[in-house]
């Protein structure tokens, strides 16, 4: 039979009905929150509905964007998928884990962390969140490799060199502490580390925010090339339409914890439907 129907599209990551509430998780907290109320804070319970009813699938080789301003919940969604924080409700499944039949939210924290070795990798806006700055570039890449059992020093160095080459970090800097690296270079090392074990799913949280424009452009180029070549399924979280436009094929727009619109990235830029999306696009267009 077909593998092509919407129902059986070969997704690598599937998120369904994801929600994250800080504070009282009862349904009462939902009332009066969301874009139509202009707030994510429940008027009755004071809980913050950081994300609610977020669902999407990402296919291998596909990049999905999540765009929204700060506080829209986009980073919360990413952190829930990464396992950095626990979702209040909903399902997260990876094709690589029991063929997608396991809800990652049901796993123990330890099992959840183990997924970060091979099944899912994250690149954070702040390289210090994903790297040990007092370890060499090679040593940072050695971390995920040794974690999955690499025990050959020369083998690790060879793999680290390959990865650094791929992210265009000069090999002469492999044995320098990451602390001595520029922001763009640190971000490249973080990307190399994330790719070390060829994860099928890659999460990118504002990967170029805070970098100088020219440096950010270089990192974006690199990411676009890697997304094309590796066949990884990527989720790109950004407040910047330029980043989303360059890296993703489809996009979700979030506001006050809810998805207000989703579509093909160029369609969202050319023909946004929701008033908030139109406002975002208008702002991005200057």
């Amino acid at each position, binding site marked *: 039979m077909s593998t092509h129907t919407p129902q059986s599209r070969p997704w690598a990551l599937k998120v369904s009905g994801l929600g994250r509430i800080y504070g009282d998780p009862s349904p009462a907290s939902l009332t009066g929150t969301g874009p139509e109320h202009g707030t994510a804070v429940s008027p009755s319970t004071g809980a913050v509905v950081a994300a609610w009813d977020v669902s999407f699938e990402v296919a291998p080789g596909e990049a999905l964007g999540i765009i929204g301003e700060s506080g829209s919940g986009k980073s919360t969604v990413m952190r829930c998928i990464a396992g950095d924080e626990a979702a209040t409700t909903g399902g997260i499944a990876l094709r690589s884990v029991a063929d997608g039949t396991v809800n990652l939210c049901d796993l123990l924290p330890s099992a959840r*962390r183990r997924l970060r070795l091979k099944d899912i990798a994250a690149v954070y806006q702040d390289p210090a969140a994903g790297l040990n700055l007092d370890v060499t570039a090679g*040593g940072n890449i050695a971390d995920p490799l040794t974690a999955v059992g690499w025990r050959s*020093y020369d083998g690790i160095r060879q793999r680290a060199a390959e990865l650094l080459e791929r992210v265009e970090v000069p090999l002469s800097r492999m044995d320098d502490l990451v602390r001595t690296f520029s922001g763009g270079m640190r971000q490249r090392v973080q990307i190399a580390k994330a790719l070390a074990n060829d994860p099928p799913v890659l999460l990118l949280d504002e990967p170029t925010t805070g970098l100088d424009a020219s440096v950010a452009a270089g990192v974006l180029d690199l990411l676009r090339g890697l997304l094309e070549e590796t066949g990884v399924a990527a989720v790109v979280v950004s407040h910047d339409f330029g980043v989303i436009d360059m890296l993703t094929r489809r996009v979700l727009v979030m506001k006050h914890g809810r998805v207000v619109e989703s579509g093909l990235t160029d369609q969202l830029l050319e023909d946004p439907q929701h008033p908030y999306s139109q406002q975002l696009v208008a702002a991005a267009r200057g």
Partner: protein
Amino acid sequence: MNTLSPTRTGTGASRAGALAGPDPRPGIFDELSKRELRRAMLSGIAIPGYQVPYGSREMPVARGWGSGGLQATLSLVCDEDQLKVIDQGEDAGVNASNLRRLITEHTGAGEETDTRAADIIQSRHRIPEQPLTDGQILVLQVPNAEPLFRIVQEMDEQRRMHAEADYAKMWVWLYEDIVHNGLITAAAGYPVLVEGRYVMTPSPIPRWDVPKMNDSDAITILSAGREKRLFAVPPHTRVVPLTFDDRPFEVEYTPGTACRLCGSDDTYLVEEPGENGAPGTWSCSDTDFCTRRRTGDAPADVAGQPVELARAALRRATREQEETS
């Protein structure tokens, strides 16, 4: 439960004393605490390499000066036991003598220097060269129980890493050591993997002694009084020093040296500086073994045969040199 002391029956307060077993000797360690230590040791033996917490008591030695080893030994030793205590391989050192005397005077155990005859051997820096046998217990004083202390500072994170056997950061640390220094420089307390599960520090023994822990006939108890934790290696347990497959574990060795007293070149040797700038001389660190080697009363092979590792490393180095020239 043993006999109850006639002076300790009846009242609720004395019931605890009754549970503690035999009438305590007047002295330095109460029976309830000994029982706590023994339970902790049994837990440690059940989970090789796992750090078991215990309530460390005040001892007549300062914490960090063997109080952990002292509590373990006091909890284990019986009247009929022979006790050996060494400091840097030597029975006659000041610390060793004092600890040995302290224990024997408070327990009735006999003082012993011959490793073969000792039931319990307490040590800080060395494991005897004499292969230990079934029934013997080696008590090591551990100044720093946590092998991860150099890698992460947060104790919660250290515990999590042990619980999940997540030792990648330890491997990164070894990797970085080779990058910066060309080799793994960890000397005393070289990290080992116990029975394929827990990473453990083997106390500040030299690398030379690490192979002796693997598949030993004896029980090893490692106790840290200051950190209030102990861990154990039961007999015939795999103890493997952490290293990369292509960077074999090496021990301390100076080619061409031998003990000036007994002539051994397969024991752990320490250098004594020469007088007036003359070249230093070498002698066995393990004085008991050295004495017996001289009288022909020692086995041909020392425990663990670490010299074989040293010789293999030498052969590798020579081969590499030939290949490059």
